[in-house]
Structure formats: C-alpha cells, structure tokens
C-alpha cells in the first residue's frame, strides 16, 4: 500500500490536472430553451415519435414549473439564479459517419481520454471493464461490445437504444423517475442528449463491470445525461460511473437522471466516483451537479446498491434512492461526500419501503474542510403494507478545520408498527492528537490527513470495486490538498 501513498502524494502536488480544453469542431445549437429546441434535438437524434412526445410533455411540465418559480429551494445550498435561457442544450462532436472501430475516432478526442487516464484502446483497458465513453453529449465509442452481446447484455448509448430497442426504452423510460418528479428531472427529460442504456436479460450475470466516464468539454454547455439500467429476473450487473471535467470559470449545470429497475431476484450495483470541477479556492466556477438517481426494486428478492464517492462539483444536490416494492427486496446506500474550499453538498438518500420484509442500509460519511458545507439529507419511509421492514442508518461527519460545517437532516416516516429502525450519527474532528501521533511516526501532515480520512471512509470504500477504491482514495487526497495548514 505504500505505493498507493506515493501516488496519493504525487496527486496531492498537482492542481486540477484535468483542466484542459479539447479543440474540436462542434455541432451546437443556439442558446435557449423552447419547444422548437426540443424538436430540433429530437430531430437531430432521429428519434421516433414517442420520444418527441415524451420530451415535449416533460418540457411543458418544466416550463409551467419554471413559470411558477418552482425550482427547489429546500436544499441547504446557496447559488445565484440559473439563467436557463443562457444555456446551450445540445452540443456534439461533429461526426461524419457511424464509427466501426476506435481507429475512426477523432484522435483529438482519444488524446483527451488519455489525459483523463481512460485507456480507451481495448488492450489497455482495465481487465474486465467495458467503457462507454460519453464525450459532451454523444457517445463516441463503446468497447467490449462483442463479449457483452455474446452474453445477451445490451450496453449502448441511449440514442442507440432508442433506435434499436425502442420497446424496452418505451417500457421503462420514466418508470422510476417520471418527468413530474422534480424540476431538474423534468428539464432532463425534455432535453437529455445522451447517456447509457443497459439491459441484462433473465438469469444472466453480466460478465464484466460496466463503466462510463462522463466529461463536460464545451464551455457553457449544460450536460443532461440519462441512464437506464434494467436487470431482468435473476440478472446481475455492476455499473461504474466516473466523472471528471475541465476547469471553467463559469458555472456549468449538470442535471442527470439515472433510473434502475430490478425485477425478481435481480441485483444491480451502481458505483459512482464523481470529480466534476469544484471551483477554485475562492469558490469561483465549478459544476452544479443536480442529479436525480433512483432505483426500483420491482421484483421479489431484488437488490439495488448505490455506492458513491463525491469529491467534486461546486454544488451537489443528489439523493440516490431505492423504492423497495418487491417483497424481501433490499436497498443499500453507501456514500462518501467531501467538501473543501467553498464547495456545498446536500446529499443523501431515500428508502421507500412498500413490500413486506424489505430491508435498507444507509451508511453516509461526510467530510468537510476549508469553508465546505456538507449536508446529509435522508428519508426512510415505511408504508402501510411493508410488514417486517427494517432500516439501519449510520451517518458520520468528519470536520477538518473550524470554518466548515456538517449538517444532518434525517426524515423518518413509519406507517407500519412492525418496522424496525436504527439510526446512528456521529460527528468528529480530525484531532490534533491523531495528527501528531501519525507525524511522530514519520508521516507528513498531508499523508497523515489522508490516512485518517481514508480510515473514516473505509466502510464505504470496501463496497467499491478494487480499482475504483484506489481511485477514490487518490481523489480524496487531491481534494483535501491544502486543507490542513
């Protein structure tokens, strides 16, 4: 593990190294949002009629909400009003034709991925990981398709799924997060440009971890991903999502939607390492990450696990949730959220227990440094029919320095007397005693801090796939740089 510490160290010495801009020709539409823009996006993507209708419905709902000034304001974050007419809603690298292999991908784009550390060429790929890379709004390359196809697994861009598997898309799109769910989900439904689609058929265990890297490139381009993952009866899939974004002065809106559906005996693991640009040391710039992620355990004995490591973004507004509809279904949420400098995070989960003997586990670790504000907001709801439901919640906060804040808002709603609920919460400070102890053994301050922080997060890291756990540790170290002086 000492080599890890080395890496951590090298990383800690760097500024936000992914702050470069790729110079490629772009196909973008004028700023602003209206029905004409929705039609234009749908037309550009050559979508079937049902998609256009779906988008327009969502747009009309969103427009009515925007008019009524119904943008959510309950989160514990502050930011200037967003000018939704000032955003460009579609931007894609210009492509002449459909690509058959990586050789045809714009070399400039490939170089970008190399800098990001995504080895796109198959031979360089991490063993057993297929990457569906999203560059701005359009997926440019998908790897390992053949192996997945052999297993019957569909893993493609959302646009491709709309063309090739319209029935599946039609059946499940919006079934977990309807466009009326919230302001940002409505906006996403109206304008989403691309994302990933996964379908794992009955009884199939997906033969590899599926992975997507997102990247925002064009300045002032809102990015609206939409991901839909369906695990049919008895299927299993593990999905990894990683994000990095280049340095920008103007804030960029990122309003994604992720929907997961697990049928009888199916299991979905969804892991995220999020490192959008957090803004500079004075709080200038950075991504607004307003994301709606929700999984539905539709079938009996199904299971959905969310694991997230959130180190980036100026503002994070995100509550990966589970609807536990099938009897005996299980929902899990493991989270590390770190805020440094002027970052704000309001994140947590919702566990909605509908079925009998449903179980949920929530482990949230919030780390605040600098002037960072970290809020855990979690809801556990036990509905009338959920006999024998159980929830365990653990919610810990770690403070570094004395200018940051940690806040906890747990909501618990129980309508069935047989439910068993546990809630534990703890707040601690990185103690001078702990730091001194590690330093006295020869560790530098920065290494000592990341060691303590990594120890604090261990419960969550162990839920991540190995490679991701290492990356998560690196990111924490980078994000904490300069937090202890």
């Amino acid at each position, binding site marked *: *593990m*000492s080599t890890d*510490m080395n890496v951590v160290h090298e990383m800690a010495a760097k500024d936000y190294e992914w702050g470069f801009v790729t110079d490629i020709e772009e196909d973008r539409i004028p700023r602003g949002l209206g029905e004409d823009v929705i039609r234009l996006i749908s037309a550009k993507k050559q979508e079937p009629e049902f998609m256009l209708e779906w988008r327009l419905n969502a747009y009309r709902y969103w427009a009515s909400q925007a008019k009524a000034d119904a943008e959510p304001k309950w989160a514990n974050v502050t930011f200037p009003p967003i000018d939704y007419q000032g955003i460009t809603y579609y931007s894609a690298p210009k492509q002449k034709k459909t690509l058959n292999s990586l050789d045809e991908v714009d070399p400039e784009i490939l170089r970008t991925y190399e800098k990001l550390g995504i080895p796109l060429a198959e031979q360089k790929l991490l063993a057993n990981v297929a990457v569906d890379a999203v560059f701005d709004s359009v997926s440019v390359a998908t790897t390992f398709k053949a192996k997945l196809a052999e297993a019957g697994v569909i893993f493609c861009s959302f646009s491709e799924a709309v063309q090739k598997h319209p029935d599946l898309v039609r059946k499940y799109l919006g079934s977990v997060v309807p466009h009326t769910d919230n302001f940002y989900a409505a906006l996403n439904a109206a304008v989403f440009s691309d994302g990933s689609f996964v379908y794992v058929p009955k009884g199939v265990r997906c033969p590899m971890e599926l992975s997507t890297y997102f990247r925002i490139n064009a300045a002032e381009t809102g990015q609206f991903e939409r991901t839909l993952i369906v695990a049919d009866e008895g299927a299993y899939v593990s999905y990894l999502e990683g994000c990095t974004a280049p340095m920008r002065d103007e804030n960029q809106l990122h309003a994604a939607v992720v929907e997961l559906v697990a049928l009888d005996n199916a299991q979905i693991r969804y892991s995220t390492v999020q490192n959008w640009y957090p803004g500079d040391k004075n709080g200038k710039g950075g991504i607004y990450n307003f994301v709606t992620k929700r999984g539905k355990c539709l079938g009996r004995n199904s299971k959905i696990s969310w694991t997230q490591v959130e180190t980036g973004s100026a503002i994070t507004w995100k509550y990966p949730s589970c609807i536990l509809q099938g009897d005996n279904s299980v929902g899990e949420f493991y989270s590390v959220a770190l805020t440094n400098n002027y970052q704000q995070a309001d994140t947590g989960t919702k566990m909605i227990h509908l079925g009998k003997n449903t179980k949920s586990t929530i482990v949230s670790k919030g780390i605040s440094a600098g002037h960072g504000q970290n809020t855990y907001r979690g809801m556990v709801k036990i509905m009338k029919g959920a006999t024998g439901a159980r929830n365990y919640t653990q919610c810990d906060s770690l403070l570094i320095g004395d200018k940051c804040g940690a806040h906890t808002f747990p909501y618990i709603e129980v309508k069935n007397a047989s439910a068993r609920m546990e809630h534990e919460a703890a707040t601690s400070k990185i*103690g*001078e*005693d*702990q730091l*001194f*102890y*590690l*330093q*006295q*053994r*020869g*560790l*530098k*301050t920065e*290494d000592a801090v990341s*060691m*303590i922080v*990594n*120890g*604090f*997060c*261990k*419960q969550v890291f162990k839920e991540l796939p190995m490679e991701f756990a290492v990356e998560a540790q690196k990111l924490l170290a980078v994000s904490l740089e300069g937090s202890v002086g």
Partner: protein
Amino acid sequence: MSLLEIKNLHVTVDGNEILKGIDLTVNAGEVHSIMGPNGSGKSTLAQVLARRDAYHVTEGSILFEGKDLLEMKPEEAACEGMFLAFQYPVEIPGIGNTYFLRSALNAQRKYRGEEEMDAMDFLPMFREKLKLLEMDDKLMNRSLNEGFSGGEKKRNEILQMAVLEPKLAILDETDSGLDIDALRIVAQGVNSLRSPERAMLVVTHYQRLLNYIVPDFVHVLVDGRIVRSGGKELALELEERGYSWTEHEPVGARA
C-alpha cells in the same frame, strides 16, 4: 558528539512556564531516567523533544546529533530517529495497524534515502517483533489501537519502536496502567532494543519500572528544573524517601 544536548531549556504552555532551564546530555548507548512528581514537567519535556507545537520554547537550545531539533517538524524529528512512546496512544478508526506501521517505516526510509520495504520483506521482520512483544497478530488486523486494552496499547507502542528502530526512544510513563505481567513483557521488549547506537529516555514517576529497565542515569525533575542527578541508586532513594527531600538537601556530586 552527543546524541542529544539540551541547554538551558525554557518552555511555556498557554503562557505558563513549565520548564525553567533544563540542561541534559544523552550519549548513544545510554539509558536515562527522568523522574519526578506529577506536574513537574516530565511529559512536557517528552512532548517538546517530539516537536509538539503547542509547547513554546522561549529560551535555550536542543541539538539532536548536532542538528537543531527546534527547527524540525515532528515528522522530520521522527525521521531523524526521534521516537516517542506515548503515555496515551490515540485510536484511529479504519487504519490497519500493519498498514500504518509499514507506511510509517517507509516514510522514514524514504526520508533517509533508503529503499522502501515491500510487504514480502516487511512481514517476516514484523512477525519477529510481534513475538518479541508476545503480541497476538490478530490485533494487527484491527484498526490502530482501536479497542485495545491499556496494556495492549502500551505494548503496541514498543512494537512500533522495535520496527522503527529509532536512535533516541522516549518512553513517556510507559508503565502506567500496566499489570505486572505486561510490565515484564514491555520491559523485555525495551531491553532487547538497548544497543550501543541507541539511547533511551525513560520518563516515569515510579521506581518500579526501573527494576526492569535499569537506567545508567537518573534525573529528578521538580517544578521544571532538574534538581538532582545520579546513578540508578538514586531511584531507590527516591522510592524510599519521596521527592520532597531533593528540593531541600544540597545537590551532591552530579553524574
């Protein structure tokens, strides 16, 4: 050159002067014991040597192998070979004992320009040291000091010392909270680390520990000053007569 040379050391904590002019010279191979009543400044001296920044040196100097110790950060002093066995070792959740110790050892080796030790080389050495302290290796898979008994924590301190092989080891009240068996094991561990290259500073207020770790020199610290120095027999005299007489009787021949 002496290993440690403290001259006229004055130290304040929160504006109160705790050490009021300490002179002490320690050579390689020597074991010195600092004894004294509660509040006399023994632990302060230990913390200052380990470079804890809450302690302000207002006057005097400390040379460690001829280098100015007061210019060093805690981790630099550690890498130069200064080790403090803490009176109250802290617990740090989520960090494995073994992982921590190897990271610390490699940080020190790197500082000294030596090659880092990989797990293959580290583990056999580590197991030897565990045996020396009669420690259960199951403990090593647990988080750093977490859930350790008082005795286990103290033994863990000596284990760390055995792995890090410092030039100067300061034992701050290592005997407190130890039962007689644990005391014997700890002392055995410490004695096995005595060598002509290594010096030890044993801070305690009971003579008991010194039956097991026999010092070359004993210094009595009262109210921030060393009021008396002598050989190991001074400790016995203290045990018999208490500390108060040292302040009133004239200082005899100094060691």
